[in-house]
């Protein structure tokens, strides 16, 4: 079955994952429209990150599937799928070397290379103009996370999966990264799925929210309805 709604970027259908007897995610159904920001909230261990890993197929669903712009994601080559669904994780995991080397990583995987202007434009977008030749070992936590965001954007994704992108940062860096994500979403109309345990952050960034408990969606709708019910 495919989805014909043109504005729908991603649709999860009956998505479940169990490891042995442990059920991580159970019968999840939702969809995300173009330029929408969806927050997935819930307590620690509720299955938020497990769900996000299923969306770009870093883990295999036990049952169910995901449609990306109407196509079953099992029909898309894993590398191409992951390029289209960019992911920013809690820790940036930068590769050793320069900032530019990190930004070139994604394009190089498909035989392309960013020009100097392209690199600088990306760095400008994340507030790190002039950082191209810096060694990533000398970056602060906030700067490293900005490079991680720019590295993901270098792949021109259609959707961003954000897995607690500010939870490992200090308060000042957290505010900066959140503002950056809001500007990227607003200025470029990028679709986002944000996993967070921070309800206030979800309220500030997202329009809709899913509340997950024990791997199941227990509430979904507009942020205010879900978070303040």
């Amino acid at each position: 079955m495919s989805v014909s709604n043109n504005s729908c970027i991603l649709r999860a259908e009956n998505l479940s994952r169990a490891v042995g007897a442990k059920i991580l995610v159970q019968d999840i159904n939702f969809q995300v429209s173009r330029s929408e920001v969806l927050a997935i909230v819930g307590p620690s261990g509720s299955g938020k990150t497990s769900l996000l890993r299923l969306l770009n197929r870093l883990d295999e669903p036990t049952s169910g599937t995901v449609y990306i712009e109407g196509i079953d994601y099992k029909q898309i080559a894993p590398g191409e799928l992951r390029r289209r669904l960019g992911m920013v994780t809690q820790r940036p995991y930068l590769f050793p070397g320069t900032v530019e080397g990190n930004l070139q990583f994604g394009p190089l995987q498909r035989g392309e290379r960013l020009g100097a202007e392209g690199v600088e434009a990306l760095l400008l977008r994340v507030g790190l103009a002039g950082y191209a030749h810096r060694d990533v070992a000398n970056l602060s936590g906030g700067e490293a996370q900005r490079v991680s965001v720019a590295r993901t954007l270098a792949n021109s994704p259609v959707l961003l999966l954000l897995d607690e992108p500010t939870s490992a940062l200090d308060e000042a860096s957290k505010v900066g990264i959140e503002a950056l994500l809001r500007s990227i979403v607003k200025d470029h109309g990028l679709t986002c799925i944000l996993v967070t345990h921070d309800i206030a952050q979800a309220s500030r960034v997202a329009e809709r929210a899913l509340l997950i408990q024990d791997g199941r969606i227990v509430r979904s709708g507009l942020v205010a309805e879900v978070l303040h019910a």
Partner: protein
Amino acid sequence: MLKFLFSNQLALGLAQAGVAAAAAIVVVLLARRRQVHLEGDTVVAMVRGIVQIVAVGSILLVLLRGPRWTSVFLLMGMIVAAGATSARRAKGMPDAFRVSVWAIACGAGVVIALMTWAGVIDTAITTLVPIGSMIIANAMNTNGLALNRFRSDVLAHTGEIETALALGAEANNSVSPYVQASFEASLIPAIDSLRSLGIVWIPGLMAGMLLSGARPIYAAIYQFVVLAMIFAASGLTSLISTLLMRGRIFTPAQQLLLQPGRS
């Protein structure tokens, strides 16, 4: 001193084994005083070692009188045993036994076959089996080191590997730094053996050749030949095992199977 006490060679051998084992037990007792408990493992390993080597010696006694082709079966048996032993170093890695057997068979087997064909190793069982076993044993050690290092590197870098996958990298590219590091690390003992040959140690084979009356220069050159063969076999084995294992730690959908807590 023992030679004066024992005139029978078998009795002398057992007495020598007893003295050597006593030295090992002293070390175990010293370790015990420092709260390091090696007693169980050491006693089991020493008993296993002496039983196995005496059993192999007895089998060799029979086989050495047999036709030359029997050495092929002996070496094949050694390769399977070596695969089983080094696969234990790759706990939790998928298909470790088969990968190890294939890698050692291709690495050590190819070198033994080529060198025998070229006349570097004599086809007599008394030469082919001991030299072949040395090559296989070293390939086994290298294989164990390579898989062990690869396993620990992957487990320590799952975040980096999955980040590379999430950026669209092919599975093989995402672990290439760890394949390279494992290959390099596994060859350190073989390189050090070559480097220190004659300075730090005079290997058993050369000592044996000298004791049996070979010319020292020939014994020395042949020792280099053996170590070069060991290096070639070890390198080939390590390369094959890490490349084979690289493909097995991912699913067909390029998902990392080897994860902390799952293995």
